[in-house]
Structures are given as structure tokens and as C-alpha cells.
């Protein structure tokens, strides 16, 4: 129907457009089985084999080979320590990271949207960004004690500036042409924010979320090592105290998986929220 309308006024379209529905099974298969996946698996295999060889030569005491990790992880799961540490860590990570997202995006947006706010806060943000968070730990202990709050604050401070600065940059870099176009068509201030600015700055905001996520994981571990010996960081420290490198590596792998999962989650959200910038390029 639409085709005839176009034909009537402008002749045939200058290019042939084909539309084809992909079955869900194909979509899922493509996601799981792809060349990238094979290469990634191969790469992982190379790492594991190299690690195994090195571990067997140096001995479990120095470098536990991957083959010993099954037993270690079984032991840690059976005793319940791994799961409770994981939950402990994840809760402080997610709470701190979420607060950082809310604060970072809001403040970053205000700074980018209202020029005055940006100019006034800019040096303070720069100052906060360069202050080494880990160096403030003694003060945190005085303020927040050694518990959950202190860890949340550390995670927050570790990642909030990445998110804030990235959002600020994104809002500042919104194409003025788009704002002008929206204004010309009668958009009010709220619509400029909700329909234009908040969408136009999304690629930058997601870049901030990605950088912030890895910083948040690091902040979580540091907090667990420096405050109370707890969570996954605590598990590492305890295992190291007993010279159990196999247990240390189990925790390290769990941390890596958390990092990869978090990055994948953000990437998935990003591809949903900004289909135009990651659109089909084949």
C-alpha cells in the first residue's frame, strides 16, 4: 500500500529493499555459535593449557593449575563460603554502582544542561576525580565504620566520576542542530530534555556506565580487603593466608565472570537503547 503511494509520486524507489523475517531459533543460534565465539573459545583454551602447563611445573603452591580448581571450587561451594561471599560482594557492588549511576547521570546532566552549573562544578569534579579513593580509607573507617555502608561508599566513589564526567561530556556535545530543530518545531524545555537531550547523550552515558562498571568491581574488592575481611576480597585474603592458590584463583575467576557479565549486560542494554549507533552494518 505504501509502495503504491511512493510509486504514484516519485517513481520506484532508487534501491531495492528486501524484508525477511528471521526465525527465533536462528537468532539464538547466531548468538551462541559464531566465528567470534569460536575464536574466543580457542583463545580461552590456549590460556587454560598454558596455565595448566605452567602450574604443573611450578607446583600448586605457586600457581594452581586449572585442573585443581574443580576440586577447590567444589569444596568452596559445599562449605557455602563462596555463595555467601558472592552475595555479600554483589550486594555492595550493586548498591554502590546503582547510587553512582543515579548521582553521576543526574549531576552530569545538570552540569551539561545548565552551563552555569557546569562551569561552577567543573573544578570540583576534577578535584574529586584525581583524589585517590583508596587513600581516603582511614577517613571512611572513622565516618562509616567497617561495615556494609563503608563498602558501598567506596564502590560509589570509585565509579561515580567516570559516569558523571561521561554524561557531562555527552550532554555538552549534543548537536545544537538537533536542539534547534526541536525548538523550531515547538518543543518546550521538558520535551527538549525528555525527547532530545536524554536520547542524544545516551552513547556517552553508556560509555560512562561501561568504564564505571569495571571501576566499581575494583572498588568492591579494595573495600573488602581494607575494611572488614569479607566478601570475595576477603575470601582471596583468607585463601592466600593458608597458601591455597587454587582457592584464590577460583575467586579470581568468579570476579572475572562478574566483570564479563556486567559488561555484557550493559552492552545488551546499550544495543536496545541506542539501536542507531550499533545498527546492522552488514
Amino acid at each position, binding site marked *: 500500500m505504501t509502495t503504491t*503511494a*511512493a510509486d504514484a509520486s*516519485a517513481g520506484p524507489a532508487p534501491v531495492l529493499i528486501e524484508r525477511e523475517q528471521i526465525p527465533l531459533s536462528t537468532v539464538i543460534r547466531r548468538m551462541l555459535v559464531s566465528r567470534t565465539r569460536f575464536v574466543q573459545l580457542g583463545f580461552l583454551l590456549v590460556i587454560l593449557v598454558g596455565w595448566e602447563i605452567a602450574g604443573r611445573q611450578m607446583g600448586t603452591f605457586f600457581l594452581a593449575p586449572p585442573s585443581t580448581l574443580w576440586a577447590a571450587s567444589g569444596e568452596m561451594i559445599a562449605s557455602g563460603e563462596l555463595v555467601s561471599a558472592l552475595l555479600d560482594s554483589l550486594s555492595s557492588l550493586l548498591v554502590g554502582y546503582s547510587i553512582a549511576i543515579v548521582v553521576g547521570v543526574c549531576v552530569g546532566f545538570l552540569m551539561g544542561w545548565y552551563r552555569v552549573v557546569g562551569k561552577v562544578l567543573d573544578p570540583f569534579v576534577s578535584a574529586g576525580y584525581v583524589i585517590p579513593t583508596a587513600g581516603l580509607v582511614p577517613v571512611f573507617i572513622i565516618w562509616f565504620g567497617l561495615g556494609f555502608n563503608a563498602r558501598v561508599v567506596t564502590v560509589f566513589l570509585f565509579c561515580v566520576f567516570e559516569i558523571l564526567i561521561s554524561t557531562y561530556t555527552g550532554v555538552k556535545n549534543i548537536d545544537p542542530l538537533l536542539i534547534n*530543530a526541536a525548538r*523550531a518545531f515547538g518543543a518546550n524545555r521538558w520535551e527538549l530534555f525528555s525527547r532530545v537531550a536524554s536520547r542524544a547523550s545516551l552513547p556517552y552515558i553508556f560509555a560512562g556506565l561501561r568504564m564505571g562498571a569495571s571501576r566499581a568491581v575494583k572498588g568492591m574488592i579494595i573495600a573488602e580487603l581494607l575494611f572488614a575481611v569479607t566478601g570475595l576480597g576477603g575470601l582471596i585474603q583468607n585463601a592466600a593466608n593458608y597458601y591455597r592458590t587454587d582457592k584464590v584463583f577460583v575467586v579470581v575467576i568468579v570476579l572475572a565472570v562478574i566483570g564479563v557479565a556486567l559488561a555484557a549486560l550493559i552492552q545488551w542494554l546499550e544495543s536496545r537503547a541506542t539501536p542507531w549507533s550499533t545498527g546492522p552494518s552488514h
Partner: protein
Amino acid sequence: MLYTIDHVTSQQLTNPLAAAGPGPSAAGGIRVAGLVKTYERTTGREIVRTHALEQVDLHVAPNEFVSLVGPSGCGKTTVLKVIAGLLDPTSGTVTIDGARVTGPGTDRGVVFQQPALMPWLSVIDNVTLALRFAKVPKRERVPRAERYLALVGLADFHDHFPGELSGGMQQRVGIARALALEPRVLLMDEPFGALDAITRQHMQTELVRIWEDERRSVLFVTHSLDEALLLSDRIVVMERGRVAASVDVPIDRPRTRLGLLEDPAARRLRASLEEML
């Protein structure tokens, strides 16, 4: 009546205010009076002032089609932006049907020199978003957007993103967006600049058809004299931030490219305009 361009231009050149058309009593259409725009930028100890518009008086009568021509950088886009309400003038006033312009409004549809489409929205969503901003009732938005997209030949591309379109196609989305607003005043900044000759001709025909169907005032910036002659009732020539001349185009409609080539009056008009630029 024999048309003597020499007489018109010399008179207009010496008295640019006469270019503003009928006296100030005629309140309708677009009226630009004493427009001055100076861009200012401070770097260190230096202030740089660009006098983009030194003095511009301009009148587009209701339902009149006026083309604005002039060398690159002479201030055409600046005039258009001020009329659109997107840029505050240093001094001077703009009125539309007698009402003073103080900001953007949906009585004016703007086609920008660059397409200015939202990259995160599909073609049709770009058009319906403008209609939403303009407070067009929800039920009307999609059918109206589809109608104008078909008009510019992009019905098949309604679910594509701007990044997936060619430059000329993007420009046509921008044109559909302005037309869909069905405004009383159309402000178009080189809207057909990025189009191939055939598509351009098609768009010119459509624009004239729309303008004749639902009369509205059009201010149309172009670099092409042929285009200006084909489309407009009057051609305003700008030079260094001023109106250098305003020339009526007394050629019967419907006009065709070929007809313009053969019409001696049109050729004389073209020659003298060319000399001015």
C-alpha cells in the same frame, strides 16, 4: 507590458528600503524590519565581531513565494534563523501576520540547510516527533507523516534510521517534516541542494503544487537562479548582510524549465541577476 530589469534594479539598489514591498500598513505575511545581527566572540584580549546582517528589510506577502539568493556567507541562513525565532537579532524586528516574533513557533515550518534529523528515531518517528511537538492530535500524526513521506518519495523507507539514508534522502525527510506541520509560513534553506537533477525537479514540482493547493508564504534560500526563477514570485538578492535588490518574476505559471529558457523576459531577468551575483 515590457519588463525592464535595468530600471527595477537600479531603483532598488539605491533605495533598499523599497525592497520591503508594500508600506508598513500591510501587516500580513512575513515582515522583517531593520534587522541587524552581529556575532561576537572574545578570545583573550581580542573581540571579534562579524556583522552578518548590517541592515535587512524584507517582506513576504501572504501566499507569496520569495527566493533569497546571494553569495555564500552573505547572511541568508542568518535571516532565516531570525525569522524562525531560533536566533535573537542584535536589533530590528520580525513580524508574522502582524505578530511580533520572539521565539520559535509552529506557524513556521523550517527546513534546515543540514537535515538535522534525530539519529535515534526512524524516518517516520522523526516526522511524528515534530508533529507531537507541534501539538498535533495523536491520531493524526502517523497518517499525516505517511502522506508527506510518500510525497517526498520515501514511503518505503519509513522504518529506516537517518544513518541508513543518503544525504538527499535525509534532506527529503527534513522537507517532509516541515511540510507535515502544514504551517502558514515555510522557511526553506537550500532544501534541494543535495538532490540529483531528477529528484530535484520532482521536489520543485511538488513544492509548487503544495504551495498552490494550500497557499502559504514561502521564503526559499537557494544558490540556483534557475530554481529561483522557476519557483518564485519575487527574488531577493542579498549581499554582505544587506538586501541588494528585490526583483519581481512576472512570468506566467505554470512554468517549465524549457519555457523559462525560451521566454525572452526570463532570459533577460536571469542575465541581469547573474550580473548582480
